[in-house]
Every structure is written in structure tokens, then in C-alpha cells.
């Protein structure tokens, strides 16, 4: 198609060709034409006018009734033009919003930023992927010299922007509580008070807080209603639930959190996650924790970071690439 040709001439030529031979070729040309017209934002009522003009040119002797009938089609398509124009405007709005969300998600990354610590004898893998642009899951590491590696994993009930707003507060609160950092129950108890005071009544947060003592190789942990993790015993090749009881953050400001312990041997792994991992909805319903274990088992010999990457890829595919919830998984493996 010659670019200098007007849309009118192009349309007329396509119509004429099709009237001569009814070829698929001409229909394909019509589709290509529509691509150009859409790119030029030609509204649909304009297309009706092109059709009518081309027909008048090619079949000038048709009865006036035929031309009248186009007035009705034009009227209807002008109303469809409303939707067409609104579409343009929505696309612009959406582009702007996407852009804003991208900036926000960068701000969030900076605000919530944490880095996976490098510790002799401990391999760590971590991955967190938001379902939408903003993440309502959160994890945080604190490497306290020779003493311990602390890990927090949290999930706001709710997704997207509201959840992200909450999380930035939690992060700030965690940073403001250095003196309690070492004790999981004390950490959850103070965060609980912050959430209860600052966040509105319909927002709750689940959190798992663990302190891995490097000298004794004991994991001390507490949970505020968070999805239970797994403890993988390397010697027996078996998975156990890392069960811990405790109320969600933000329900009752006087909640106490019990502290649990787990001794960790060489080859053992601590697997933490958010409910977005287990509540991965597939064609056959949610996957079971059993199914998840079988996925992890497949990659059990790989380094933790590779395990978490591969599990995400598999579960993403199972869900046809549409995450319903934020997805976070962390693995700590004692290697010596």
C-alpha cells in the first residue's frame, strides 16, 4: 500500500478488488487497512462513511434506499465512537498509572530494601514477586555479626497499593526497634503495637520472625498468624511443618507471642513462604502443601537461590502466568 494514498482511496481500491474476485487476499488487505486506521485513531463512524463513499463510487446506480440505510448504521456507529474515544483516553490514563506504579514500586524497593547476607556455613535463597505492581509481601534480613542472622517474612492481608503503604510503615517500625531485634517474640510484640495503633481496623499483617543463632545453630522463631514454613531434615530427607501459633498483628495490642526453637544440622533447610505460594490456584484448585513439597523435592540438591527461582517458574506456569497473590519464598540451608 502506498503511504501517500488517502484512506479513502485505499479503502475504495480494496473494495473494488474484492468485488472483482472475492479473494482472501483482499480480505487480508482489509485487515491490514484496519491496522492503519486504528493506529491513526480513525473512529468507527468514519469507517462507515468510507464504506458508503466507496460503494457510491463503485456502484453509483444503486437505489437511494441503500444510501439511506447507511444513515442508520452511521448513527449507531457514532455511539460506538463514544466507546472508541473513551478507549483512547483510558489507554492514556492506564499508561500514566503504570508509570506511576513503576515509580512507586521503585520507591518501595528503596524503602523496603534488604540484602541477602553472606554467611559462612549458611546458604540463603530469597525471591518475592508481587501479583500486581506493588508488593504486599515483605522480607527482611539482619546479619548481626557472629551472633545471628535474623529473618522476617510478612504478608499484609490485601494486595497492591494499600498493602504497600502498610509495609513501608512496618519497615520503618522494624528499623526503629534495634534493641529488641534479637528476640522474635519481643519483635512481634512491639510491631503488633505499632500496627494496632497506626493502621485502620480492617488491615492485618501476618509475620514470621526467626533468629538463627550462628554459634549454636538453633533457630528461634515466633509467628503472628503467618503461613507455616517447612523444616527439611537432610539426614532423613523429610519435610516437617515449622508450626508456631500466634495472633495476626493488629488485632489486639496486648497479644503475646510464644518463642519456638529448632536445632539445625548440616544439610537441614528452613523454608519460609507467604500464602501466595500455597494458595496458588491451578485448574484443579489450590495446590496442596504436599504438592509443593514434591516440587521442592525435585530441586533439593540445588543451591537455595536456584530452588526458589525454579519453584516460582513452575508455579507461575501452573497458574497460566496470572499470579493471584504476592509470592515470597525464602530458603536457609546449613552447609557446614
Amino acid at each position, binding site marked *: 500500500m502506498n503511504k501517500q494514498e488517502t484512506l479513502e482511496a485505499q479503502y475504495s481500491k480494496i473494495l473494488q478488488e474484492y468485488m472483482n474476485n472475492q479473494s482472501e487476499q483482499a480480505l487480508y488487505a482489509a485487515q491490514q487497512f484496519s491496522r492503519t486506521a486504528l493506529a491513526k485513531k480513525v473512529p468507527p*463512524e*468514519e469507517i462507515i*462513511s468510507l464504506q458508503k463513499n466507496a460503494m457510491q463510487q463503485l456502484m453509483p446506480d444503486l437505489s437511494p434506499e441503500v444510501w439511506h440505510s447507511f*444513515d442508520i448504521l*452511521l*448513527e449507531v456507529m*457514532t*455511539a460506538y*465512537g*463514544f*466507546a*472508541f*474515544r*473513551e*478507549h483512547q*483516553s*483510558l489507554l492514556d*490514563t492506564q499508561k500514566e498509572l503504570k508509570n506511576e506504579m513503576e515509580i512507586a514500586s521503585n520507591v518501595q524497593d528503596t524503602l523496603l530494601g534488604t540484602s541477602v547476607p553472606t554467611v559462612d556455613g549458611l546458604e540463603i535463597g530469597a525471591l518475592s514477586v508481587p501479583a500486581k505492581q506493588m508488593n504486599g509481601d515483605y522480607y527482611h534480613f539482619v546479619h548481626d555479626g557472629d551472633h545471628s542472622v535474623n529473618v522476617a517474612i510478612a504478608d499484609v492481608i490485601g494486595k497492591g497499593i494499600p498493602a504497600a503503604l502498610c509495609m513501608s510503615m512496618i519497615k520503618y517500625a522494624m528499623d526503629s526497634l534495634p534493641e529488641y531485634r534479637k528476640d522474635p517474640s519481643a519483635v512481634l510484640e512491639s510491631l503488633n503495637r505499632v500496627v494496632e495503633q497506626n493502621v485502620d481496623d480492617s488491615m492485618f499483617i501476618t509475620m514470621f520472625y526467626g533468629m538463627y543463632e550462628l554459634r549454636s545453630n538453633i533457630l528461634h522463631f515466633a509467628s503472628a498468624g503467618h503461613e507455616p514454613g517447612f523444616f527439611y531434615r537432610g539426614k532423613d530427607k523429610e519435610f516437617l511443618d515449622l508450626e508456631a501459633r500466634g495472633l495476626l498483628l493488629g488485632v489486639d495490642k496486648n497479644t503475646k507471642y510464644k518463642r519456638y526453637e529448632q536445632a539445625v544440622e548440616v544439610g537441614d533447610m528452613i523454608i519460609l513462604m507467604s500464602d501466595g505460594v500455597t494458595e496458588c490456584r491451578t485448574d484443579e484448585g489450590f495446590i496442596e502443601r504436599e504438592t509443593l513439597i514434591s516440587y521442592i523435592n525435585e530441586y533439593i540438591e540445588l543451591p537455595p537461590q536456584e530452588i526458589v527461582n525454579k519453584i516460582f517458574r513452575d508455579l507461575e506456569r501452573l497458574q497460566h502466568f496470572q499470579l493471584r497473590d504476592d509470592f515470597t519464598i525464602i530458603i536457609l540451608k546449613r552447609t557446614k
Partner: protein
Amino acid sequence: MEIQSCVSILNEWDIVAARQLGRNVAKELGFGTVDQARITTAISELARNIYLYAGEGQLCIDRLNENGKAGLRIIALDKGPGIPDIRKVMEDGFSTSGGLGAGLPGVRRLMDDFNIDSNPGEGTDIRATKWLR
């Protein structure tokens, strides 16, 4: 130079009369059939808004001629309840009329100029212009 004709909007038939008036003026001024359809569609929306939300009002058509450029202005006037939140009704995607993309933002996009003035309790004044190209 403005020559103005008006139709009172009291019932649904008056919407048709307003459309007819607008179409006649548009034809006279030399607007093509596509623009005629756009102008009458905009008139329909505005007249229907008066009928539905204000109960009664007026729809007027101005013939414009500015520096040799001809144009048509639709004026929709009512003394109805007014629009409490104009920012809201000018938002996309939430037309009260149920028409996809219709409502006031739709009318604004169909025309070249669009102005709205409304005070709660005092009524609404909407002016929308299309210029002949």
C-alpha cells in the same frame, strides 16, 4: 455574530426536536454527514441529561462565525439541582447514563470545545462547539 434558536426540553419528544434543529443548522453550515451525526449525538446526550436529571431546560443552537471560521455551538441550560462534584462527572468510565463512553466526557471528546458551569441548587450551563473544517 451569533444567531440562536432554542428548543424547550420537557419530554423525550423534545430531544428529537433538538436533534432536528441541530441537524438542520449543521447541514446549512455545510457540515458533512459524519459531523452531522456527531453533532446530533452530542445534542441527544445533553438533551437527555436535562430530561433525566433536571426535568426541564433549554437546548439552544448558535451559528458562529469567528474570523471567517464557521461553527456550531450547542448550549444546554437548566435550573435543575446542579452538579455537586464536576470533577467526578468528567471522569472516564463512570458515566451515569449507562452508555459506554457516553455522558459528559463523551460529549467533550465528540466536540472541539467544551465548557461546563454548574452550581448546586442553581442549575447547569454546558456549551460545546464544533468548528467547520
